[in-house]
Structure formats: structure tokens, C-alpha cells
């Protein structure tokens, strides 16, 4: 798994629970190190092992941990760059949803060896969608649910999200968009640069 993914998990745990808990998790996973390099590649087996160790150390369920990581990635001030990059995908939450199919390609344009889950959006009726997430990491549907929840907030939209389990190897997330202009949203200044 790409270092960026592992690094994101590390930052989530250290920012939310402290460096000591992160070290406890990496010790428990038997990594032999506690700092992931964002631009290195790691063995795919490492990521689930680290996530399970984090669950044990924090005494939390795997699915809700992944959803929290997704939310953290978009809403935490320390990772503003990712939120900005996602906001380039569309001017409204609906446009953003429709651009999710492009997300793996967008990621590859930025970092050529970064492989994100394959995402397909199906629209059933106005405001009613399902998202099919197919990725290497178990529970990546939950992670995307966290991302979507935070992005809806960011755009000021009101959306209801529900994980519907797995179907033909893809995790299914139901998205019901109740209101597109529910709140003010955070705004997006094209010219600003994330620090």
C-alpha cells in the first residue's frame, strides 16, 4: 500500500489520540518502526495489520475507525491540502458525487503510483444514489462514507449515508441527498494554497 495511505492512518491516530497510542499500535502490529514515509511503498499486508492493531489499542470497531479516518482526512485542519484537492472536483456536492468516478485517475495524475479504490456512482432518482467502492483495503467503503460525510458538510449539503454491506466484491454505500444548500459550507477559494 502506498505510503500516503499508511501515513494518513498514522496522522489520524497521532492527531486524535496522541503519539503514545500510535507507538503502542505500531508495536502491537510488530512493525519495527513507527514513522511511515509518505512517498514510499509498503507491503500491502502491513496496512490491515496496523489498522487492526489501532482498533485493539483504542478499543474501537474496525468499520467506525475507518469512517473516522475518512472524516479526519477531509475535515482536520492539518490535512487541508486533501480537502482542497477534492474541492477541485466540483462546484457543488452533486457535481462532486458525479466526479468520484474520476478520483483514482485524479490521484494518479498527482502521484503516479497511488492507487485509490475504484468508485462507481449510480443515480436512482433525484437525490438518491448508491456508491460502489472496490478497493484493496477491507472497509474502504466505510472510509469513503467518512469522506463523503465531511465533504457534504464542506459543501453545506445535508446528506444521509448508509453502508449496505458488500455486493459482488464491492462495498455499497447508499447516499440520500436531502438538501443541497442546507448550510453555509466552508467555501473554496481557488487561489488560496493549503500550507
Amino acid at each position, binding site marked *: 500500500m502506498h505510503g500516503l495511505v499508511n501515513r494518513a492512518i498514522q496522522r489520524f491516530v497521532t492527531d486524535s489520540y496522541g503519539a503514545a497510542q500510535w507507538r503502542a499500535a505500531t508495536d502491537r502490529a510488530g512493525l519495527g518502526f513507527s514513522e511511515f*514515509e509518505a*512517498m514510499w511503498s509498503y507491503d500491502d499486508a502491513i496496512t490491515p495489520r496496523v489498522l487492526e492493531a489501532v482498533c485493539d489499542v483504542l478499543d474501537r470497531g474496525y468499520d467506525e475507525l475507518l469512517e473516522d479516518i475518512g472524516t479526519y482526512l477531509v475535515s482536520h485542519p492539518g490535512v487541508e491540502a486533501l480537502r482542497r484537492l477534492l474541492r477541485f472536483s466540483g462546484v457543488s456536492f452533486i457535481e462532486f458525487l458525479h466526479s468520484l468516478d474520476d478520483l483514482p485517475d*485524479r490521484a494518479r495524475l498527482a502521484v503516479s503510483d497511488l492507487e485509490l479504490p475504484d468508485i462507481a456512482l449510480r443515480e436512482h432518482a433525484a437525490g438518491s444514489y448508491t456508491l460502489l467502492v472496490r478497493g484493496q483495503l477491507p472497509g474502504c467503503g466505510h472510509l469513503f462514507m467518512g469522506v463523503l460525510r465531511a465533504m457534504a458538510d464542506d459543501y453545506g449539503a445535508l446528506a444521509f449515508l448508509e453502508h449496505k454491506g458488500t455486493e459482488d466484491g464491492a462495498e455499497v454505500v447508499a447516499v440520500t441527498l436531502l438538501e443541497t444548500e442546507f448550510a453555509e459550507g466552508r467555501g473554496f477559494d481557488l487561489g488560496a494554497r493549503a500550507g
Partner: protein
Amino acid sequence: MSEQEACFGMLDVLCPMHVVVGPDGRIAHAGPTACKFWQEGDLRGRKFIEVFDIRRPRPVADGVELVALSGAKLHIRLRVPPHRELKGVAVAGPLPQHVTVNLSFGISVVDAIQDYDLTAADFAATDLTIEMLYLVEAKSAAMEASHQLNQRLQSAREAAEEQAVTDPLTGLNNRRAMDAVLAQYISAGRSFALMQIDLDFFKAVNDTFGHAAGDHVLLEVARIMMDETRAADTVARVGGDEFIILLHGDLDRDTTAQIAHRIISRMTTPIPFEGAICRISASIGSVQSTDYIRPTADQVLKDADEALYHSKRTGRERHTFFASLEPDRQSAQM
């Protein structure tokens, strides 16, 4: 809706950064993004050349000359602050005797976004500007991460080099390793002999046949010294063509001298390299720890160097014991 309004409406969607110049040379209509260039009021009614300075392919004085530039790529500078450079193209139409000039920011778009506080809605849906801004930002973030990684790797490399005990070319020990072993022998009170070896004529090999030949000679020399010593002895490259051999154990002088002579004799055998014959020899100066009451590293190294100097001065290709030098040539008490 009049035909004129319909035309302008289409242009506003397809190319929101355009201006339409009428027969009088004044701006008849401006797209919503182009309107942002003139922040003091309405762009319409202003003379085109008062707002836009066409610099290439050539300056124009009025609308008629603008028609003549139809289809050409225009380099334009805004006459109002912040004087952004624009790219443009002019075409006749959409009304008779009108010229439409479509504009773009070109490479300065990143700055222009901030100047005019533009959003995604200011660009046509098919315009790739937003994708370009995404790429600029994504690549900058990725580059920054790589840059930080590189700096960390470089620091780690420097730290590793500082701790290294091996000479990268020959695989022999380096000065640091030799110093450590010598210090250990002395503090443990163990017996040893120390040889300081200098290659003769090595510079000539480098100068005549090049550095590849020089490197080949150094590898050969390293192999000879490893062959002629035991596994527990220490062979170190301590300079370009300078070596130190630390022989452990209580060797008598004859044995040390035999080893030295074997090394010299093998090194004087010509070394072929890619059709050339490299000829070197070696000068050696030695000390035995048993010559000292209480040896120190500085002293034995200095004395071995003195003996080496004597070998060189007396014609090279020879071995000298420091203890056999005339007493007045000996710089220290024995």
C-alpha cells in the same frame, strides 16, 4: 430575445472571457469573466485599445486593424493594474462589422485567480483551467513531500557515511576502523605490528592511464594485502594510495619483515589493465608494539610514518623498521 442578445448569451457560456468590439472600436459586449478586468464600472462603451494593449503580432490603432489580425494568436497586456498578460484570438462577428476577441490568462492564470478572485464558475465548463489548478496544487504537494523525504534520506546517508568503517572502493577498512582497532589493541595491552604502506608511482598510473586504471590497481593492491595477511589482521586504506596493516600477536621482526617484503615483491609485478601495463611498487615503514614500554596510537603512527619516509627517501620499494633507524633519526624514546 433579439438575435444579438442570443449571440452574446451563447458567447457568455462558451467563452466567458471574451469581448465584442463594435464598428466604432468600442466594446459592445463583454463576457462575465472579462467584465472583472474593469473593476471601476462597465467595460461596455470603452474603447478596446484603451483597455487592451495588443503587443504581438503588432499594435493596432482601431477595430479595422483588429479584423486584419483575425485568427492570429494575440499577445495582449491589460492597460489597467495589475497589467496582466493575456493571450487572445480575434474573429469577425457575430454581428456585421463586429470583432470578437476571446481571451485567456495563459500561464499566469494562478496569479490571475487571486487578482480577480475567480471561481470555477468563471470558466467555461469545458475549460481545463480548474484541472490545471488542481494539478499545480497536487504536484506541489507531492513535490514537497518528496523534497522532505529526500532531505531526510540525505541526512541519513551522511550519518551512515560518518559511521561507515569500510572504504567503498576496495572494501578494506577505512581510517576510522583502523583507529578503533589500534585503540582497542593498545588499551587491552595486546601485542601488534603496524605497517604504514605507500604506493610508489601510483600518481603516474592515474595520470597516464586514467582513474579507471588507478582504481583497478588499488583493487589489485588490496587483494595482495589481504592475501598476505591473516583473517584477524586489519588492512585499512587510510588515504588515496596509503594503507595501514595492523598485524596482531607477538610477531618477531623477521616475520614482520618477511610479510613486508612479500607485499612489496608482489606489488612490483606489473598489473595489466585494458591493454596497458601499470607499474607501481610500495614503500613500507613498520613498528612493533614490543619496542615500546607504553605505546600510544599517536606515537606508533608517527614512528611508522617516519620509517616509511626513510624507505621512500632511500630509493623506494623497500621496508624499514623504525627501531633500526639511527638513534638521531628516531624522534622518540624507545
